[in-house]
């Protein structure tokens, strides 16, 4: 996750409760512990104070859970306060949801406050039902599909997050195609980094990515506008200037999470029901514990000796502390899942990109080298 120098990103974890029981969820037991209004107020004051103290121009406020829509009244209250009190600061909102509680009236309320919604869908109904059952153990694909249609009708540029687990790995291409077929044009795929990945799983994932490469190439040749993180991010890791350490999320500095009880964490990954004291970097009541914050930030930025001499080190996200933590239990150690994943995916992506470049694919050239492409394509998708 990256932030520009003038942007601060704060995530409000409104509750630990969730109506789904995703097989890969890392946030621990689903307890009904919502954030109190008083904590929310303190959290808002704290964020404004941090922003003004550091001369921040842009604030990105994110809502997370559990499922944030369980606490919809609190969510709207927080958003309203930010809008009311923002002053000169530009405030943007984002929310990640499973969509099952999304109703037209509620959606209207969210859109009125310009809250950008990202929907979690893991692929075709079979995969979603298997990976994302509700608390009663029943599949939720129908409710999620319905939410997808509702969201797309309001915002065709809705982002979908698709989690790839060792079980769903062989079906990545089909999953992406299914999601695309539903009308989504911004697709972010991410691995279940805490999953028990094996080399066999990675081989299956490789075969699936090869299929996805064919899909990607076809779509590019057909001049379709879309964003697929697994491919586009890797191409951008070559076409765009790599992020300097100071341009990254600066875990705990330019980005932090507020847990339902007001505790501060460096990233959403560390906010779980089972508290992890070593990653608590403060509290909204009394601010940051600077020593703790500094230690975590330095630890995550440390050179990884295990990556020394790697030919794709500069294009890899081995610096991401939360992924490393999820995968190894330490922010200092590079994740073997990330390592294997990059080693199988990078050559596949580069091959496709080479082919498209050889053909001077017009869409490829503009997508990856034209600085105004993101704006123009967004307008085209939403037009």
């Amino acid at each position, binding site marked *: 996750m990256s932030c520009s120098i003038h942007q601060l990103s704060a995530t409000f974890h409104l509750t630990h409760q969730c109506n789904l029981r995703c097989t890969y969820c890392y946030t621990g037991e689903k307890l009904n512990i919502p954030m109190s209004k008083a904590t929310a107020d303190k959290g808002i004051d704290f964020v404004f104070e941090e922003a003004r103290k550091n001369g921040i121009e842009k604030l990105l406020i994110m809502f997370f859970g559990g499922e944030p829509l369980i606490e919809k009244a609190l969510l709207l209250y927080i958003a309203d306060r930010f809008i009311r009190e923002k002053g000169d600061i530009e405030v943007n909102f984002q929310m990640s949801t499973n969509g099952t509680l999304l109703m037209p009236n509620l959606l209207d309320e969210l859109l009125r406050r310009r809250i950008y919604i990202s929907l979690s869908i893991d692929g075709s109904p079979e995969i979603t039902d298997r990976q994302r059952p509700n608390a009663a153990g029943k599949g939720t694909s129908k409710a999620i599909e319905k939410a997808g249609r509702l969201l797309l009708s309001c915002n065709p540029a809705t982002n979908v997050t698709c989690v790839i687990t060792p079980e769903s790995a062989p079906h990545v291409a089909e999953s992406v195609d299914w999601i695309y077929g539903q009308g989504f044009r911004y697709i972010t795929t991410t691995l279940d980094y805490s999953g028990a990945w094996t080399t066999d799983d990675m081989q299956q994932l490789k075969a699936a990515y090869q299929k996805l490469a064919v899909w990607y190439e076809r779509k590019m040749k*057909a001049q379709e506008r879309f964003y697929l993180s697994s491919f586009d991010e890797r191409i951008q890791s070559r*076409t765009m200037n790599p992020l300097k350490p100071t341009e990254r999320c600066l875990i705990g500095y330019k980005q932090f999470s507020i847990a339902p009880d007001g505790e501060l964490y460096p990233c959403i990954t560390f906010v779980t029901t089972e508290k992890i004291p070593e990653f608590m970097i403060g509290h909204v009541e009394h601010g940051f514990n600077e020593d703790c914050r500094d230690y975590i930030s330095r630890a995550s930025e440390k050179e990884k000796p295990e990556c020394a001499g*790697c030919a794709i080190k500069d294009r890899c996200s081995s610096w991401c502390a939360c992924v490393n933590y999820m995968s190894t239990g330490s922010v200092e150690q590079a994740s073997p899942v990330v*390592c294997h994943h990059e080693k199988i995916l990078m050559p596949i992506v580069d091959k496709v990109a080479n082919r*498209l470049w050889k053909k001077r*694919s017009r*869409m490829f050239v503009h997508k*990856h080298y034209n600085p105004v492409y993101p704006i123009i394509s967004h307008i085209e998708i939403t037009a």
Partner: protein
Amino acid sequence: MKKKNTLSVKPLRRYNTPIYPSYLDKNPIEHPDTLPYPFTYKALQALAAAGILVGASCSPTKEGSNNLLATPQQEVVQDSLTNPFAFENLRIPYRPAMFGTGMPARLSREDARTVIYQVFVEEGLNPKKNYHYKNDSISVVLDGFDPKSNIGYIWVDGYNMGGGIVAARNGDIKRRSAYEGRKRTVLGWYPGDANLKEFEEHMELAVKYADNDSLKIELGQQFNEAKLIDNPDEKIAAYRAILVEHRIKSTIQRKIGITMKAAEERTRLARDYFQKHLNENSTQADKARAYTNWMFRNSVEQYLQGEDVDETTKQQMRDMMDNILDLENEEEKIHKYDVMISFLSIYRAASMYKIYDTTKVMQVFKADDMNGVIENMQQLEIEIADQKLTLQEAQYLKNIHRTEQDYIAQIGARDRRFHYSQPSIFMNFTKEEEEKLQKIKSTGTAWEYQKARREFANNDEKRDPKAEALKALETQVRQYIQWAKQQGAY
């Protein structure tokens, strides 16, 4: 103990540097040849209306400002250029005319290819002749292709037109006659338990060879939905509903499908056979041998398609055919072939095509030696079918600029723009003369008209219709290259 298949971090020591530009290279957007952003028409309208383009066209780099975004005017100019070789101009599926004296003259293969090649070169391209264009979906020999610019061409005439193209045209005529003036009935086909599988096969063919894309989609959707029905009675009812709605006559549809499929398959098989057995160094004798072997195999196979040939006989015939083809001695081969054909003639079905083919083969084989075979072959104007184009491939080439971003002009000998009148003293008038004649015809007497015709016919300064046709071809090819370049070919 660590499991064998658990993951660990291992640096990648070697990695091939990708060829696409990195952030350290010059941004390709700044390159003068980079084409403008391919706005969708809808977006272009929306942007123009919102006035965003004006602002957006200001690039962050000075050099790139011309290429970064097209202005609406540039885009409109680009849209105004169209592909002069639209698929319809090929006028395929094609049915050869069996009779008639009023046929216009068509450009010869040699003349047309020479002109097209010259235009390509003049436009700064470097087309490789007889370029074997191959990917997962297609394998055709193009008359010219410049891999650097992704622009090429193929001259489509009787030489490289596959059997499927002819069969499809016949199919169209039959299909139309089957549809027209019929009542909305099932037309004799009743899918039931016994023939369900057969019906489904025929429906698949009907979908595949549907008249147009919309029918293909509609029919395909209805058929696929019906196929998913579990209850057999309901499924049959759904199938019947499709038949009623689209008035598909089973016998016609079956025949079209099978003929078409067989013709396409035959073209593909023949091409594969010749490509396998011949190469650039093959002599005319090699070609003759390959051709006769293929025709022999083909003709035998056609006999074997007869419904009254049982499986044992088919296998025996195929074994016998393989044995004959393996023979080194040509005389012995011819003799055994004769015996086999005589034997097979009892299975001969009343099909003109089979008799025609067999007769050709017989004529070729009846020569005394290989020189005779070659001579016969030349007399019969037999062409080696290693470059035949199937209908499916022609249709694939139609959209190849979208799927592969290659620009391949399919230029047809039957494109009416390149037809010309046969030179004749009665017809070979200049444009001015024709205009004058028209005027006299409408205002003067018949005598005056005939007199003028005779007078003009003796005029020495005659136009050259063939040169005009070649000029028209040249113009269209030049326009195609411009269009392709503007569309995205470099």
